[in-house]
C-alpha cells in the first residue's frame, strides 16, 4: 500500500518529464505559465535579462499584471508602471493586464489558470491558482527572471498535507474563517510542503471560495495549495471562455486513493465560528466573540483574498439597510474591474455605497502598504486581507485584525469588532 501519488506529485512529475516523483526528490520542472506584477516583474527582470543577454523563453507563456502601484500616485510609481507597459510591448508578452485588477483574480477571470499546470508566480500569493488543480508557487524576482529566461526551475518535491472539511457553514461563516482557523491549528511553519483541501464542504464551495483556501496556503507557509478539479472548476473556465478540453484527464489529476500524505486533518465546518486573527500575525486567531468590542478606526475590504464579487456580496448582506458607524470608516478596493462591473449590475455596489463605504481603485492597495488606505500610528484596523504583519498596512505602530468580509462589515456597522451573525439572522 501507499504507492499512489498526490495531485501535486502528479503535476510535478509531468512537468519534470518523469513517470512519478517522491517527496524530497530534486527535479527540474518545465513551467507552463510564469507571471508577475509591476513590483516584482519587469522592473526587476529587465536588468537581469539584459545582463544574461536573453529575452523571454516563450512570451506566450508569460503574463504580467500591473496591480501594485496602481494607479500611480507619484512620478516613481508612474515610472514603474510605464516600465511594465514598455517591457510587455517590447517582449510581446502574451498576456498583459494593466490596472484591471489583482493578478491572482485577473488570470483566472481570463481562463489562464489550467488544471494540471505548473505555474510560477512572482508573488507570495501565487498558490491561489491551485484552486484550479494547478501546482502554483511563489518565487522572488531573481528566480522569476531565471524562469522567464529559461522556462524551467528546480524544486524539491514537497510532501502534501491533506485537510478535509465536512458539513455546511453556518450563517456568517466563509472560507476565510477556515483559513484563519487553520493558521492557528497548523501554524505558519509548513515550508516546503503543499496543502490539499477536500471533503464535502470544499466540494460544495465556489471557485472564489476555493481561491481563498489556496491563497492563504501562503500564510500556512505552504508552497502550494490545491483543490482537485471538478465540475465547478470546469463551469468556471467555460464561463471564462476557455473550457477544459479533456475533462477526464483533469479529473484523473485527483490524488490516488493510496497516495501518501505528511498528515491528514479532518474538521467540521458546521461548528466553525467566525474567526478573527489578532495583530501581528495570522495564526493569532480566535472566535470573533473573543475580540468583540475592540474599537476600530478603519474597516478594509480589499486584496486578492478578500474583495472578489462574492466577498463584496458578503459585506452587502451585512450592510443592507444599515450605515457605517460614524466612529469608523469603511474602505472597499474591489479585486478587479470585472468585480466592480458585476457589483454595479447586481446592486451590491449600491448597497455598499448607501451604507457609506469609500470606493478605492482595484489593486493590491493598502493590503501591502503600497496604495491608498494605509494606517497611522496607533490606529486599529479590521481587514479582509490575508496577513497582518507589523507595519504591513502603513505605520508599524498600527494594529491590524483579520476577518472575513462578513466580520469586517459587521465591525463597520458597530465601529467595533462584532459577531456578524447578529446582522444575518432572520430578525435582521
Amino acid at each position, binding site marked *: 500500500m501507499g504507492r499512489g501519488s498526490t495531485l501535486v506529485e502528479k503535476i510535478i512529475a509531468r512537468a519534470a518529464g518523469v513517470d512519478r516523483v517522491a517527496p524530497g526528490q530534486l527535479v527540474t520542472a518545465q513551467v507552463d505559465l510564469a507571471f508577475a506584477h509591476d513590483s516584482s516583474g519587469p522592473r526587476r527582470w529587465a536588468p537581469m535579462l539584459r545582463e544574461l543577454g536573453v529575452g523571454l523563453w516563450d512570451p506566450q507563456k508569460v503574463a504580467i499584471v500591473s496591480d501594485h502601484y496602481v494607479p500611480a500616485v507619484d512620478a516613481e510609481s508612474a515610472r514603474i508602471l510605464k516600465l511594465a507597459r514598455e517591457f510587455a510591448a517590447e517582449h510581446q508578452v502574451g498576456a498583459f493586464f494593466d490596472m484591471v485588477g489583482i493578478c491572482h483574480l485577473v488570470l483566472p477571470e481570463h481562463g489562464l489558470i489550467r488544471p494540471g499546470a505548473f505555474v510560477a508566480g512572482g508573488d507570495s500569493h501565487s498558490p491561489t491558482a491551485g484552486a484550479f488543480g494547478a501546482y502554483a508557487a511563489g518565487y522572488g*524576482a531573481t528566480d522569476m527572471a531565471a524562469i522567464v529566461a529559461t522556462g524551467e526551475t528546480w524544486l524539491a518535491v514537497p510532501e502534501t498535507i491533506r485537510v478535509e472539511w465536512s458539513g455546511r457553514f453556518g450563517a456568517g461563516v466563509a472560507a476565510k474563517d477556515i483559513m484563519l482557523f487553520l493558521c492557528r491549528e497548523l501554524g*505558519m511553519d509548513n515550508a516546503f510542503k503543499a496543502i490539499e483541501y477536500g471533503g464535502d464542504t470544499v466540494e460544495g464551495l465556489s471557485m472564489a471560495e476555493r481561491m481563498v483556501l489556496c491563497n492563504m496556503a501562503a500564510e500556512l507557509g505552504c508552497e502550494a495549495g490545491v483543490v482537485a478539479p471538478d465540475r465547478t472548476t470546469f463551469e468556471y473556465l467555460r464561463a471564462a471562455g476557455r473550457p477544459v478540453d479533456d475533462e477526464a484527464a483533469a479529473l484523473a489529476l485527483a490524488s490516488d486513493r493510496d497516495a501518501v500524505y505528511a498528515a491528514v486533518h479532518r474538521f467540521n465546518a458546521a461548528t466553525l465560528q467566525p474567526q478573527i486573527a489578532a495583530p501581528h500575525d495570522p495564526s493569532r486567531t480566535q472566535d470573533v466573540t473573543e475580540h468583540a468590542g475592540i474599537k476600530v478606526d478603519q474597516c478594509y475590504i480589499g486584496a486578492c483574498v478578500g474583495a472578489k464579487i462574492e466577498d463584496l456580496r458578503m459585506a452587502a448582506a451585512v450592510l443592507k439597510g444599515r450605515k457605517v458607524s460614524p466612529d469608523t470608516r469603511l474602505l472597499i478596493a474591489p479585486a478587479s474591474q470585472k468585480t466592480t462591473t458585476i457589483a454595479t449590475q447586481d446592486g451590491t455596489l449600491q448597497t455598499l455605497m448607501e451604507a457609506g463605504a469609500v470606493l478605492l481603485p482595484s489593486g493590491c492597495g493598502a493590503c501591502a502598504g503600497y496604495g491608498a488606505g494605509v494606517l497611522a500610528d496607533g490606529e486599529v484596523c479590521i481587514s479582509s486581507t490575508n496577513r497582518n504583519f507589523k*507595519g504591513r498596512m502603513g505605520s508599524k505602530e498600527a494594529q491590524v485584525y483579520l476577518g472575513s468580509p462578513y466580520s469586517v462589515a459587521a465591525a463597520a456597522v458597530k465601529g467595533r469588532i462584532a459577531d456578524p451573525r447578529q446582522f444575518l439572522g432572520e430578525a435582521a
Partner: protein
Amino acid sequence: MSGRAFVFGDNIDTDVMAPGTLMKLPPEELAQHCLAAVDPDFARTVAKGDFVVGGRSFGIGSSREQAAVSLSLLGVRAVIARSFARIFWRNAINLGVPCITLEQAGEISAGDRLEVDLAAGRLTNLTTGRGYDFTPLPPHLMAMMDDGGLMPHLKKKLAGAA
C-alpha cells in the same frame, strides 16, 4: 573569519525586512530600514560578516526579494534559523546569502561570535565554544553559491551552452 550574532525571534517576516510603504526607495536606502520595526538600531550597527539568527519561519510573508537584498547589502554573512519560509530561503541563496537551518539556533545569544564552514556544514560559536553540524546545500546549489548566486551562475551556464 568570524562575525557577531544579531538575534531575533520567531516569524520574522519580509514586511519588517523590507516595509511595503518604502518599496520604491533605492535598494541601499531601503536596506537602512531593514528589521527596524523589531530592532531600530539593526541597520546602523550590523557590519559586514555579521550573522542574523532567527527562530521559526524566518522570512515568512511576501515574495519581495528586497528582504534578502537588504540583508545582502548590509553585509550579512548568513542567516541561521530553526526554520525558513520557502520563498525567502530561495531568494537569499539566489543572492549568495546562505540560510542555515539549525534546530539549536535558540542557543545563540546576541553578540556571540560565530564562524561557519558552508561546505563542511559546520557552525562554531566562538563565544560559548559550542559547535553545530548542519546539512550542507545539495551540490547544484553549492555550485550556484560558489558562482556568487543564481544570476552569475546562470550567466556562466548560458555562456557555456552557447
